[in-house]
């Protein structure tokens, strides 16, 4: 009983203090919506730290519009419906001006209706399947044409692959990406018999049968390549099995879209050497911005062995863009910032310039890297110019006529160029 009283008393005191504190300092609130527990914590915790680091640096440099930034961190706990609740909490209760967050597509889809209803602003930093463009979301990760399609082109032209395995985890991102890739491969004259599609559950760990099937599929005399949209944890047992069954990168190269430096840091990379990944950023890229970023990250996190990865770069670009847009607009008002963001250009970490396009997607370079023994990637191919992210794939019948343009006069996330109508179905 005594304990209960104490608890009540202390919480009253605490909330009083908090209110005082909030009144005393006029700050701009920045919401951070990344899972800090549950299955996605492994990837998302890093992004939370990245945002916090960026905020700290910005505050040291004088904040934004003369105000200090105040992070509001919530934990949606890898629980998709909770993303909607936490978004509501951030927007309605905490009244944040911008949110950096989400990793999986399903979490973004969960937060989207709330963002549109309460007119929030979300920066989404992870590569995704496209087929979406919301007024309230800026997509700083890669769309399929900035990752999947160039990777397939590389395998086709450089490696000479003519037979394809599309292996993925069974959820929305791999399914949509594989649908796009299949349509793309067919447009390049690949026959159905030369495409093998395979889906596995989250966290699949027994790959013997599937790898053996891939081996058989690949021994038909044609150069075979695997396009992997296998997610997170399932990758390691997959690559281990490839190694054990004696499939090297020279026999059947695997190009992955979800394997980055962070995923490899918990793994003995010997069996993976030579396998590929397609991203818009690699830690190994040599540029002044990248060196500075890596150094400040290692210093912030206090661990010399921590690595940087593509979604971190996307978070970095998103944050810099938001700051620039707020300063351009002179306010943190969502509508003003949303318009100001379009056309904003900031240096990316690979020595180029990232531009925010009218469809809320970035222009990015596409890099193909080979996995090295030290868990880093070596770039073996890169696009000569940056590629503009395409919200709606040109290779799917349902979306090939759609474009997204959030500037006047179209101001629509799904504008049909044939019928010149805005369907309003933005996701």
């Amino acid at each position, binding site marked *: 009983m005594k304990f209960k009283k104490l608890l009540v008393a202390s919480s009253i005191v605490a909330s009083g203090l908090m209110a005082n504190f909030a009144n005393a300092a006029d700050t701009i609130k920045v919401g951070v919506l990344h899972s800090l527990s549950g299955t996605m914590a492994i990837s998302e915790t890093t992004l939370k730290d990245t945002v916090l680091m960026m905020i700290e640096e910005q505050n040291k440099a004088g904040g934004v519009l003369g105000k200090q930034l105040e992070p509001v961190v919530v934990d949606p706990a890898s629980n998709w419906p909770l993303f909607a609740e936490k978004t509501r909490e951030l927007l309605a209760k905490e009244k944040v001006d911008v949110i950096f967050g989400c990793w999986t597509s399903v979490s973004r889809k969960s937060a989207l209706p709330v963002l549109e209803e309460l007119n929030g602003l979300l920066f989404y930093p992870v590569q995704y399947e496209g087929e979406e463009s919301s007024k309230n979301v800026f997509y700083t990760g890669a769309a399929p044409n900035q990752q999947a399609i160039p990777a397939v082109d590389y395998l086709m032209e450089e*490696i000479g692959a003519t037979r394809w395995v599309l292996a993925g985890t069974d959820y929305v991102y791999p399914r949509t990406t594989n649908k796009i890739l299949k349509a793309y491969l067919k447009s390049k004259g690949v026959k159905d018999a030369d495409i093998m599609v395979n889906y596995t559950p989250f966290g699949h760990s027994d790959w*013997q049968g599937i790898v053996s099937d891939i081996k058989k599929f690949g021994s038909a005399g044609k150069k075979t390549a695997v396009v992997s949209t296998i997610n997170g944890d399932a990758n390691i047992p997959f690559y281990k099995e490839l190694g054990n069954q004696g499939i090297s990168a020279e026999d059947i190269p695997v190009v992955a879209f979800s394997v980055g430096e*962070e995923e490899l840091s918990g793994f003995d990379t010997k069996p993976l050497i030579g396998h590929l990944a397609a991203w818009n950023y690699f830690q190994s890229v040599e540029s002044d911005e990248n060196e500075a970023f890596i150094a400040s990250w290692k210093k912030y996190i206090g661990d010399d062995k921590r690595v940087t990865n593509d979604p971190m770069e996307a978070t970095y670009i998103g944050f810099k863009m938001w700051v620039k847009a707020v300063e351009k607009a002179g306010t943190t008002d969502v509508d003003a910032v949303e318009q100001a963001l379009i056309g904003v250009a900031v240096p990316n970490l690979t020595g180029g310039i990232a531009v925010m396009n009218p469809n809320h997607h970035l222009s990015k370079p596409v890099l193909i890297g080979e996995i090295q023994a030290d868990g880093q990637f070596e770039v073996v191919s890169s696009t000569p110019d940056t590629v503009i992210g395409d919200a709606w794939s040109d290779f799917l019948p349902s979306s090939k006529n759609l474009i997204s343009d959030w500037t006047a006069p179209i101001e629509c996330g799904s504008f049909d160029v044939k019928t010149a109508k805005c369907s309003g179905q933005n996701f």
Partner: protein
Amino acid sequence: MMRLLSVLISGIISWQALANDQVINADTAPTVDKHSAVLIELVQKLPVTKLKKLPVLVEQLASTATLKNTKKTRDVLQYLVDGELYYIKANKHVVRAVNGENKTYTLTDILADETFAPVNKSKIKKIKTNNRLRGEIRGYIAKIDLSSSDKNTRIDAINQILSNPSKPGLSAVRALLATEQNDDVRELMNVTLLTEQLKHGSHAEKIAAIKQIEDSLQPVVKNAMTQLLDNLPTNNKSTEEKILAANLTKAIKSIDGKRDLFGYLETIFFGLSLGSVLLLAAIGLTITFGVMGVINMAHGEMMMLGAYTTYVIQLAFPNLIEYSLLMAVPAAFLVSGFVGIIIERGVIRHLKGRPLETLLATFGISLMLQQLVRTVFSPLNRQVQAPEWMTGSLQINPVFALTYNRLYILLFSLLVFFALLMILKKTSLGLHVRAVSQDREMARALSIKSDWVDAATFGLGSGVAGVAGVVLSQLTNVGPNLGQAYIIDSFLVVVFGGVGSLWGTLVAAMSLGSINKFLEPITGSVLANIIVLVGLVLFIQKRPKGLFPQKGRASD
């Protein structure tokens, strides 16, 4: 023109080398024979050649092997494949660099084996290769290796040529066939040449080749045959073509028959090996669940602790990776067993006879253990290395191979199973455990300390789970969520097999594994899991006590 260019380039290099006093100078190498001179000249072109133009240069490099000294060429090619060739940024001089201590690289001259002072990574740059180029280089190396004195090197080399036939490679095989002593190597050489004969020979040669290699299971043989058959006209075949088609169809059919047979064997092996993992994961649960009736939701975390024990042991003894698993097995047993006893004494004992509370309490413990690991080791997965003897596969024939890690795990799981069986059947602890599990009150009346038996049983079950964790560290991610992935499967196996029955667990694990693996190619792994689950639910409806129900008063 090329010649002029290379002279110019080497001129620039030597000028730069002279200009820069701290760098390595190739020209100081004392005596350079003609072969080495050509090699050096070509190697020094590597940094200034674009990746797209590299194949031509590499071909020139490889062709130096026809001169009297092949070893040096082979070495250079090998360095290139292994990614050990770097060039010094300052003067574009090519050296071999090997990662040394403290993030520095040890440099050696590519020919002279001369060692230079270690440098920082930023001073040198790697000569890039890609998969395609490395494939080609391996072909060149294979050609050189054909005359190696080691039998296995020769077999690898021929396999390389067999899967990527090239003119020079084939002619080298042809030349060496007559002098080859080893039967295995000769046979493989024959298959290589006959496959080529199948592609390009005359009609009679083709028929002869089919007769000779129709027993070969090499995938290339079948591909060559299928291709030949597909290229024959479908209608209006000449008599010759008809005979050829008939021969080919027969040969392909016989090869397919054999391949299917080995395919079945492979699936059975996959099923048993998945079963062995399930067995290891579930067998500890059989003991705790069966004997004490405790639904231990923290069972998965006992496995996780076992896996982390392996990680810690590898961290503590970085030079003994080969033996780390052998050390980890007893260590993990002790760690998990100890934690298990603490949980039993501290929590479960006080919740006796209240299964729902026990379930919730152990679930809470599982969350606490996960968070503890996250705090102590970080939420990221930890790297557990595989010892050399656990990697690779036992190649029985070209279409059938057993991976070593799965093979050892299968044997190990059976070992653990029979050891537990012996403990329960032959030791006094086992006798007490069985007595308590059949009738607790009666056992107590016969002066068996049921409290002590409970603690020992729980410790034993948890310890075995820890051992399972050591095995899992070789198969999957070592992270805080490791246990969660296996807890459901473990319960499925135990319920299916019959609570408390070791034999039931064995049969259940193996049959669930096999059913899963036989369904997987037909339905895909997602649907296979669902079908197994639905099937199990229906089975439990029919036989609520599983395959091997336990007899005894407690089970009434």
